[in-house]
């Protein structure tokens, strides 16, 4: 059986992953759409920048985030003047870290998906009285469901296993920032291999079941 600490870590992880993925999907949608549609010459710069957090080792990225979010850091000082105390070592901070780190896995598939939307069907929708926003929600988004699946799965799974950033800006506080990846890591480091196996196994099982349900439901809705 899992002990309380593990269960709490698991729940925290799921909460983090759900929250981050949701935020990512919401934030990335307009961004990816804009990237797809804009004719702005400089968009390559933005596209490249989205992928950049990926190339740094997570702990290092975490370190920089830690500095940025700290009271003296550029982001932290802004937050402080807004009356928000530092987000380091808080759950909110974890969410921010995860969002930044998993962003490319959500933006890129969505952008790819949106680039496939059928301009002509969008035109048809316009002639049927649908405003741009309406068209976006009634035509573009439903047609890229598969892109959302990819984006969601990658973002979710990556947040689950994400570890370096979370370790760094989370500070491994039980119930608040100790996610399951850190717990497993701790077990491995302290040679508690059987606990590590057990917890890993549980995480894998849960993830597997969730992914399986996602994919299976996807198979069903496919047009015959």
């Amino acid at each position, binding site marked *: 059986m899992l002990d309380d600490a593990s269960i709490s870590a698991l729940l925290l992880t799921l909460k983090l992953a759900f929250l981050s993925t949701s935020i990512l999907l919401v934030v990335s949608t307009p961004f990816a759409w804009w990237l797809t549609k804009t004719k702005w010459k400089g968009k390559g710069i933005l596209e490249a920048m989205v992928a950049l957090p990926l190339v740094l080792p997570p702990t290092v990225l975490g370190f920089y985030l830690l500095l940025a979010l700290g009271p003296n850091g550029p982001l932290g000082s802004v937050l402080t003047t807004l009356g928000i105390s530092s987000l380091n070592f808080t759950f909110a901070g974890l969410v921010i870290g995860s969002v930044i780190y998993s962003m490319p896995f959500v933006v890129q598939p969505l952008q790819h998906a949106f680039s496939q939307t059928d301009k002509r069907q969008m035109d*048809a929708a316009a002639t049927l009285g649908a405003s741009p926003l309406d068209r976006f929600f009634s035509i573009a988004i439903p047609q890229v469901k598969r892109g959302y699946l990819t984006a969601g799965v990658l973002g979710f799974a990556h947040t689950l296993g994400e570890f370096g950033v979370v370790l760094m800006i989370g500070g491994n506080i039980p119930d608040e920032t100790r996610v399951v990846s850190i717990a497993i890591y701790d077990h491995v480091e302290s040679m508690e291999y059987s606990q590590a196996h057990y917890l890993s196994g549980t995480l894998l099982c849960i993830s597997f079941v969730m992914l399986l349900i996602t994919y299976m439901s996807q198979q069903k809705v496919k047009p015959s």
Partner: protein
Amino acid sequence: MHPDEINQVEKTLSVDLSLKKNGFTLQAKFSAPAKGITAIFGPSGCGKTTLLRAIAGLEKNVTGSSQFGDVDWIHSDIPTHKRNVGYVFQRSHLFSHLDVRKNLLYGVKRTDVNKRRIAFDDAVSLLGVEKLIDKSVDTLSGGERQRVAIARALLSGPELLLLDEPMAALDHQSKSEILPYLEKLHQALSIPMLYVSHATDEIARLADFIVLMENGTTYKHGPLLETVADISSPLAEQANAFSILEGECDTHSEKALLTSVNVDGNSFRIPYTSLDGEGVVRLRIVAKDVSICLDRPLRTSILNVLESTIVDIKDNEEKGQAVVKLTVGRQFLLARISLYSKQQLSLAVGDKVFAQIKAVALVR
């Protein structure tokens, strides 16, 4: 809701726009009255689709004006979804993620209840898509797609209908069911319709006005009757050149299986049709169905023989044919005969002749 029940302000579309895209330039200037279908006619690639798209607001960088009712769509920068057009696209453009029913309902949902022009079930049965209603659009045949597209456009309560070869993929039967409805619709609703077609028979039947295009330019436009009777227009050169006569219904002789139509004092007999309204009816006569005799032919199955005067003749040496323009009261009739016959009968402008008309189609 039946189309006839709706009353509304008549709006006219006046277009004077131009647009450049890559190698192609569109220059269009014409107006389409609310009462009447305006046909757009021209060879493949001449810019008909581009014109419709520009009117619907789907093309960028359109300059000029596109006045609909009181509003200049281009000047006031009205976006497509506020122009309230119904557009049947040349390649249907059905929503691939929705089934047929949801495709049809898409526009319905976005239309004010009091702007709807046709009930859902009516549109469905008119276009014969009942059996398709739950199908995925990917499984439709070419004609089925087009029927769904027409129904979808009608259901969105348009104030202007743009139809881009809506019948091209349809069989004769389907066409002959949908065409009368379109006629009725536009008469009852007084909404302008722009109708792109390569089929001169469809145009003859439906259109009141015609816009002729070539190389991106609308080089001629006007009422159909005048424009098609213009012997020098490229239309008269077509194998299926035709003329159109308007007349009034005379007596119905159901026994004789004939209906008689009075065109400026001349009586035309056509196969019996029950004409509901009195009003003006329209006869389409294909030029090659008209022959010319110097004597009145007797004991013939040809029902319609008129005395007439030749007002114009245009020879086409290449094809060995001539088009002859004849008077019918104040209206005109085109006849296509061989140059040989023209010479044999030594026909000339001003001659009194008999026009022998093999086939007359009651168009409306």
